[in-house]
């Protein structure tokens, strides 16, 4: 633990040094300082996280300051924070390397000094949030994170949308922070301490009503950061406007801070006891996932697509968390552990591939100056490295087998299907519906990312800038390559990752039981008691035990055993699946070659519908590709005609009709706009007092004076 503490201190102090360095060095070296500083911060966080996760004791508190009224302020090093720190390190390292050359583009228009200060403050606050041991530290760090991330989103202030997006983000974030501060205060009042460890040790007594209030306040508060329905309206507005590395960091890690908060309050500090809280969390997650991917499939801006998709992935994590809460409340600790483990697994996957995709989008934006999919196209020839890594990220996020997203989504659906062991029809039905929606989400996400990749990177370039694009510099390529390798690695070897994730689980869950129930020790122990012997033999017959004398580790197979209520067993092996996939591809290629060996091959130009020249504007655009989704889900999307202009000659002969149809977000329609209307009507009511006549104002002053006097006398 001392080593972890030293690493964390190095990490936090290098944030400070980086900030000072950014203020002092010459302008052209600021990006270097940030890259080196960011790399050191993330590597130290990674090391600290690894040490904390490997530590056998679950938690450790270090007091660093004593305030007169509040008592000790402390850091709390535990395995859950360790897991989050590892993810932070894995994501922040490539982002820092990437930003070295990316910031050159911003240097032309903006000074990078305060960018550097805010960036290092953001990293500082993130590390501090993860290791905060008391409410004051946590809340201060959270506020620092909210403010600095809003400032960074609004950093490119010369375009109009940036500052507006920053303000929106700040307002939402502060509302959420106030809400979860309420829940923290309720917790602290009941436990008579501000320390998390104190609350854990003596939580005090909570009535069901108080528990519900704490849940609602904290969940709403953290949901604003996580981007759950109905408070995710800021997400697709703020993320596209942020500079490239910042939007990657926002989407890949800062959203996870909300998940961390939900875990902290509802799983660690005050484990849920009511299944209905779990069902509510799962419902919100389902709605978020389906709406997120729906709007991702129809957006034109590549970064907006990714932002909506982040919302979707956060929804999936929330579904897993909700399922875990249901199992926890129904006294099924192993299944609960699997649920929470899936949430962490999905979070890690999402952080890695979303960082990759956002960095690719930033690279495309840097090289072509556009983010509109309708204006891109044909980048695979000009930017093969970016396109290849983007493809890996897109395959991962679409949950296709040899890549990282597959196992977590598979486990999510299987975990939801395990609800049959609970013997409650309502819960079974809720979980089954959630599973169906997860399936629909996965299918839509494939549509979405087929569209993004094919319209952005394949085909003909639709504009001159897309045609003249050049490949990104080497340092950026390496950071993309690092993330892509992580995607493939986790995808092929989830059996090695699952025990790591399950170590991060909360105290109520036995992590060894979780990883053993998912990955039975086929290789390390023959004849173990986790599986029925007959069943184990049948499994060995189909090759689950290949290489049991040579391979280290427990197994290459992930298993989900049903109980007596549902005697179905689900198993998959991504590791063997890769070999089978390669074999199938080779065999298919061979078969095609044998079948077509006598065919004459004719090479003719592409069929262009009889046009003399196929202009790039005539090719299939992303808007056209999204049309079927747009039509099927029209009742949700509600397309609106935004602008209709008519240019006319002599008022009678129309020469041009411009018509722009834009999709409207369902949250805007049913949540944001009613709130706006209410606020405006309140303001209008108050405005009636402002008549502009001096006698009315003096009456008001007199009235206020009299009221104050009355209050002063009687209270």
């Amino acid at each position, binding site marked *: 633990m001392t080593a972890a503490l030293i690493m964390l201190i190095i990490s936090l102090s290098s944030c400070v040094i980086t900030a000072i360095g950014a203020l002092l060095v010459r302008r052209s070296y600021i990006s270097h300082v940030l890259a080196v500083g960011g790399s050191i911060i993330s590597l130290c966080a990674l090391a600290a996280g690894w040490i904390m996760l490997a530590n056998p004791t679950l938690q450790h508190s270090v007091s660093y300051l004593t305030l007169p009224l509040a008592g000790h302020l402390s850091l709390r090093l535990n395995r859950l924070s360790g897991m989050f720190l590892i993810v932070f390190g894995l994501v922040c390292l490539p982002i820092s390397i990437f930003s070295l050359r990316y910031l050159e583009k911003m240097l032309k228009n903006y000074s990078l000094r305060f960018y550097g200060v805010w960036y290092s403050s953001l990293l500082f606050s993130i590390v501090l949030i993860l290791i905060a041991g008391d409410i004051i530290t946590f809340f201060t760090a959270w506020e620092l994170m909210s403010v600095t991330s809003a400032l960074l989103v609004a950093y490119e202030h010369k375009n109009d949308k940036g500052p507006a997006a920053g303000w929106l983000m700040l307002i939402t974030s502060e509302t959420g922070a106030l809400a979860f501060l309420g829940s923290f205060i309720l917790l602290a009042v009941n436990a008579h301490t501000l320390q998390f460890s104190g609350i854990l040790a003596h939580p005090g007594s909570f009535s069901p009503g108080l528990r519900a209030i704490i849940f609602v306040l904290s969940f709403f508060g953290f949901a604003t950061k996580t981007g759950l329905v109905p408070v995710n309206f800021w997400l697709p507005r703020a993320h596209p406007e942020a500079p490239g590395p910042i939007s990657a960091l926002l989407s890949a890690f800062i959203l996870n801070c909300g998940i961390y908060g939900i875990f902290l309050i509802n799983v660690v500090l005050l484990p849920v006891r009511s299944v209905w809280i779990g069902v509510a969390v799962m419902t919100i997650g389902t709605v978020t996932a389906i709406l997120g991917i729906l709007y991702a499939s129809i957006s034109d801006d590549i970064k907006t697509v990714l932002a909506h998709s982040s919302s979707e992935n956060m929804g999936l994590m929330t579904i897993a968390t909700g399922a875990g809460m249901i199992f926890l409340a129904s006294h099924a600790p192993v299944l609960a552990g699997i649920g929470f483990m899936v949430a962490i697994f999905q979070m890690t996957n999402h952080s890695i591939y979303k960082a990759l995709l956002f960095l690719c989008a930033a690279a495309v934006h840097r090289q072509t100056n556009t983010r509109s999919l309708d204006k891109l196209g044909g980048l695979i020839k000009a930017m093969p490295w970016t396109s290849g890594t983007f493809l890996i990220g897109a395959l991962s996020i679409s949950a296709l087998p040899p890549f990282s997203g597959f196992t977590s989504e598979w486990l999510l659906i299987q975990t939801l299907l395990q609800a049959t062991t609970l013997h409650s029809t309502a819960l079974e039905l809720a979980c089954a519906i959630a599973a169906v929606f997860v399936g629909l989400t996965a299918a839509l996400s494939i549509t979405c990312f087929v569209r993004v990749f094919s319209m952005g990177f394949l085909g003909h370039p639709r504009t001159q800038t897309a045609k003249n694009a050049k490949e990104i510099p080497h340092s950026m390529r390496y950071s993309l390559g690092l993330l892509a390798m992580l995607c493939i690695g986790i995808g092929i070897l989830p059996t090695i990752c699952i025990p790591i994730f399950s170590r991060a689980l909360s105290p109520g869950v036995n992590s060894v039981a979780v990883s053993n129930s998912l990955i039975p020790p086929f290789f390390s122990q023959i004849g173990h008691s986790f599986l029925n012997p007959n069943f184990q033999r049948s499994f060995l017959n189909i090759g689950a035990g290949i290489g049991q004398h040579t391979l280290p580790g427990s197994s290459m197979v992930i298993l989900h055993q049903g109980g007596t209520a549902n005697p179905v067993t689900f198993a998959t092996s991504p590791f063997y699946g890769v070999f089978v996939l390669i074999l199938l591809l080779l065999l298919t290629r061979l078969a095609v070659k044998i079948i077509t060996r006598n065919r*004459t091959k004719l090479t003719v*130009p592409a069929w*262009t519908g009889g046009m003399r020249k196929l202009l790039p504007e005539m090719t299939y655009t992303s808007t056209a590709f999204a049309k079927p989704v747009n039509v099927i889900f029209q009742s949700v999307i509600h397309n609106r005609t935004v602008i209709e202009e008519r240019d006319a000659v002599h008022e009678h002969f129309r020469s041009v009709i411009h018509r722009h149809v834009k999709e409207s977000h369902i949250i805007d329609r049913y949540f944001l706009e009613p709130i706006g209307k209410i606020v405006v009507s309140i303001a209008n009511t108050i405005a009636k007092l402002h008549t502009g006549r001096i006698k009315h104002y003096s009456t008001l002053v007199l009235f206020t004076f009299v009221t104050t006097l009355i209050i002063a006398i009687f209270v």
Partner: protein
Amino acid sequence: MTNTWILRGIIHRKKTEKRYDSDGLVLTKGITLGLPFVKKQVSSENAIQLVSICPTQALVYENNKLNVYPERCIRCDRCVEDNLSPIVMTNDQPSVRWSNPDNSVLLPHQFRRSIHIRIVDAGDCGGCYNEVRQLNNPFYNMHRFGFFITPTPRNADVLMVVGSGTRQMQYALQATYEAMPTPKIVIAVGTCALSGNMWSKSLTGGTGIKNVIPVDVEVMGSPPTPLTIIQSLFSITGRQMPASIISSKTEPPEMKRD
């Protein structure tokens, strides 16, 4: 609105046209005058006078003989208005024929049951295309024979062309032909596609599609009846070799331009 098609089908039963008459002969007739045929030879003055009233040079006086080339005839009836005219319009003449006398027109045996057809309108007046469109309606119902229309030449086995091959459509026609996989068959439907009809004299009207792409099967008539077109499709799949297909012909003389 209720759909009454099912009810109608039950009441009226089958409405599809027969392809055979009661004697088992193939029907190619429709509401058409048929093709011109020289019944008897006449004196040179009469012949030259007849040739002069033919607008598309379908009647040719050569080697002291009055010849008629039905692929140029547009059924204007000018030559048969007189009862004493040596020309008659008859339906007995074959209206589908192959450009090459040998069997190279036949598709391989894999295409015997089903073919996919790409239709290109290379600048017709709408007459021939209207007849081609009838092929898919409930009366002629080409699908029952396994003939399908496809929107892309990439999937097509047969290219069916109507219209005279105008200058603007020549590139598109060529590109369509080149985009088709082999083996491929071109069917030219109607007088315009075969010879250019009235507008062969014009600069941009086109003189038939054989100047653009090689034609394998010629369907004569202006317009030809749908059953005739189905007949041509049967002939290229090798499912039926009707007597109306002749395998030899004489080339008409070069068309005179004003």
